């Protein structure tokens, strides 16, 4: 009897329990379903984007030029925090105490945080403090405040500061490249963000994500450049030094390896800091000597003028006309041109002047002394069609194809638009506009045996783990277009070696290496108003060492203060030569053998030839080399 009652009681109890469970399940599946699912999702699931780390940019030696750092940000889930304190039955005073603890860690005033939370009570992400260090992050973790969390994000950082700014370009606050390589290779560098839906336990501890709820970020690939930051540093120093010394408007420099087309340095003045590209405003003041008749009085420091701002080159253009003329046997270095003093009147009545009143000059000295009259006579003999062919053979008027955005083609009118005036203008480097990079590329032809090389900045691409996935092949010069023959190249190099010795850059000669170069001093165009008589672009392009060229430099200074100097040999020449010497010294290039004087049959034709200029100057240098020993014996001494 007792047993039956007890069994009945237990059965009833179990039935009631089952009924209660079924009722609860029924309620959860119907009326309470949405509510409970929302609560469960909020409590158990947390979805977040996993940002991809932007790839690193290295120079040719592995020096980091642009990297990505992880930053920590303190945020508060305001809604969760309020809900949690209410459900736990804790007062607002407790919450204020917790906020005060947080404020102390992040060095903020508590009422500021409380106000932000009060203004956004339903917000799920209220940013409280950024760029926290490891100690602060650990301290916040120890406080264990519900709703407070640390989010990690990536920020771009440029350890070289303003160096190579125009190459790198910079990244905006949204993480997208703004200019330079950061813009051009944004897709390669950016990678792809991942996501995860993290499941949390009752203590809101992350306990993992299902496979289908997790996609890892694909970090960005890394770029290895051809830039050598040491040469870049030297180039920027020499450019800034020259621009400041001559109170110039702006300046550009390009350094290339003529054998490979690798761009070793590329710099502009003024420059900017890629860390804050949006804050780089053009300077508001102009040098005192400048007039206000140019549109670009205040250059944008972010503009990469090496590629995007073509200019009329003036006399540095002359070797690119004379070289093909030699190659086509239109003239030779010994031909004497009947230069009638300082002024020549063309057949159609235009006057062409030289700064000095030379008499008859050989073609050799037309280049060394940079005679406008001599070049005009040569241009007349060549004719417009062959002038045009000479210029286009050096690829002027076409972009070089370098891996940077916004490159200009320069300006080269179609032959049909040339007039009779074009013959003299183009022969002197006017009526065409070129970029410093195009000039450097053209000069490379005289340094590498006459081949048109492709300038490039990218040496290779590494994946996020550092494995090589692409490499720019070293070009085989023999497969590249031959602009001028090797004999012409040798002749031109030898002629241009005289420019720093007895030509327009006299006084800038290197005692250690034989450098060939050409100066330029071009009047600045005022548009329809003609050319300025007081404002000039001063330039120098050079290569060295002449016996085995390893560097080519285009060094352009725009609008220097004429009261100080304005000729290319005086303004751009010294800076370019210093850059060449420091770069060759850094590269441990052995000193050149003594440059032999011009052969007697040439010497007798040259203008005011002085053989003493060619006397050996390197005896002391050679002794120093033998003392210094092998390249491995680099000593550091403290004075």
């Amino acid at each position: 009897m007792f047993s039956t009652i007890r069994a009945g009681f237990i059965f009833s109890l179990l039935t009631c329990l089952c009924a209660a469970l079924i009722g609860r399940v029924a309620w959860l599946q119907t009326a309470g379903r949405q509510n409970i699912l929302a609560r469960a999702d909020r409590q158990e699931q947390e979805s977040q984007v996993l940002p991809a780390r932007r790839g690193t940019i290295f120079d040719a030696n592995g020096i980091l030029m642009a990297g990505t750092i992880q930053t920590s940000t303190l945020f508060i889930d305001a809604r969760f925090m309020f809900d949690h304190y209410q459900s736990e039955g804790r007062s607002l005073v407790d919450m204020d105490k917790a906020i005060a603890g947080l404020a102390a860690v992040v060095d903020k005033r508590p009422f500021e945080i409380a106000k932000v939370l009060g203004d956004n009570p339903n917000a799920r992400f209220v940013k409280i403090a950024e760029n926290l260090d490891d100690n602060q992050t650990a301290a916040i973790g120890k406080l264990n405040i519900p709703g407070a969390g640390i989010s990690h994000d990536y920020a771009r950082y440029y350890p070289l500061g303003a160096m190579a700014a125009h190459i790198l370009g910079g990244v905006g606050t949204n993480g997208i490249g703004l200019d330079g390589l950061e813009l051009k290779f944004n897709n390669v560098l950016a990678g792809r963000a991942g996501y995860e839906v993290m499941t949390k336990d009752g203590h809101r501890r992350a306990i993992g994500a299902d496979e289908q709820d997790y996609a890892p970020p694909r970090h960005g690939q890394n770029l290895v450049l051809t830039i050598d930051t040491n040469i870049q540093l030297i180039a920027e120093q020499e450019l800034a030094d020259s621009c400041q010394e001559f109170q110039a408007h702006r300046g550009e420099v390009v350094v290339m390896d003529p054998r490979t087309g690798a761009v070793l340095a590329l710099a502009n003045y003024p420059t900017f800091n890629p860390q804050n590209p949006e804050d780089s405003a053009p300077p508001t003041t102009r040098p005192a000597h400048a007039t206000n008749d140019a549109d670009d009085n205040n250059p944008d420091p972010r503009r990469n003028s090496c590629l995007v701002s073509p200019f009329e080159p003036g006399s540095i253009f002359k070797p690119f006309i004379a070289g093909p003329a030699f190659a086509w046997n239109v003239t030779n270095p010994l031909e004497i041109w009947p230069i009638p003093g300082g002024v020549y009147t063309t057949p159609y009545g235009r006057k062409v002047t030289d700064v000095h009143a030379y008499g008859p000059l050989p073609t050799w000295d037309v280049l060394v002394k940079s005679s406008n009259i001599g070049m005009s006579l040569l241009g007349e003999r060549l004719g417009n069609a062959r002038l045009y062919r000479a210029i286009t053979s050096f690829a002027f008027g076409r972009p070089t194809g370098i891996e940077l955005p916004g490159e200009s083609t320069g300006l080269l009118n179609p032959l049909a638009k040339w007039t009779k005036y074009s013959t003299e203008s183009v022969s002197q480097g006017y009526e065409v506009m070129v970029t410093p990079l195009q000039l450097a590329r053209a000069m490379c032809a005289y340094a590498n045996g006459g081949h048109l090389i492709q300038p490039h900045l990218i040496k290779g691409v590494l994946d996020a783990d550092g494995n090589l996935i692409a490499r720019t092949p070293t070009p085989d010069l023999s497969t590249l277009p031959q602009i001028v023959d090797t004999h012409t190249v040798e002749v031109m190099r030898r002629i241009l070696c005289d420019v720093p010795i007895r030509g327009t850059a006299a006084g800038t000669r290197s005692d250690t290496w034989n450098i060939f170069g050409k100066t330029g001093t071009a009047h600045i165009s005022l548009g329809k108003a003609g050319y300025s008589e007081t404002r000039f672009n001063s330039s120098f392009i050079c290569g060295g060492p002449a016996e085995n060229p390893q560097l080519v430099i285009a060094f352009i200074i725009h609008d220097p203060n004429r009261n100080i100097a304005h000729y290319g040999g005086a303004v751009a020449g010294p800076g370019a030569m210093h850059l060449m010497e420091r770069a060759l010294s850094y590269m441990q290039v052995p000193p050149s053998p003594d440059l032999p004087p011009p052969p007697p049959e040439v010497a007798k034709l040259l203008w005011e030839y002085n053989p003493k200029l060619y006397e050996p100057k390197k005896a002391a240098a050679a002794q120093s080399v033998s003392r210094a020993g092998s390249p491995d014996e680099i000593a550091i001494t403290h004075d």
Partner: protein
Amino acid sequence: MLKILLCLVTATAVAVALLQLRQQRLDLSYQNNRLHNEIQTEQARLWNQQIQIAVSTAPNAMQQVIAQQDIHFVAPATPPDHLHSWTEMPKPSESTATAE
């Protein structure tokens, strides 16, 4: 009756054991997740240190240190007379460049 009680007790024990195993799995998942986060944090710290090293060893920073500490390099290839080494800016020299 005993059988029912035995079943209940056994079922409870199994349930408790299962719950305990589940809890252990959750704890392990949590620890696994925490370790994963720590690895990522350490990786990020390495990246940040890589940047700090780059800042300190950048050519411009090195040049500044060389100048401040008055260190002189002896180059294997002799630099021009007016240069001690490529790290030093040459002194301005008189230019005799002529007009063109």
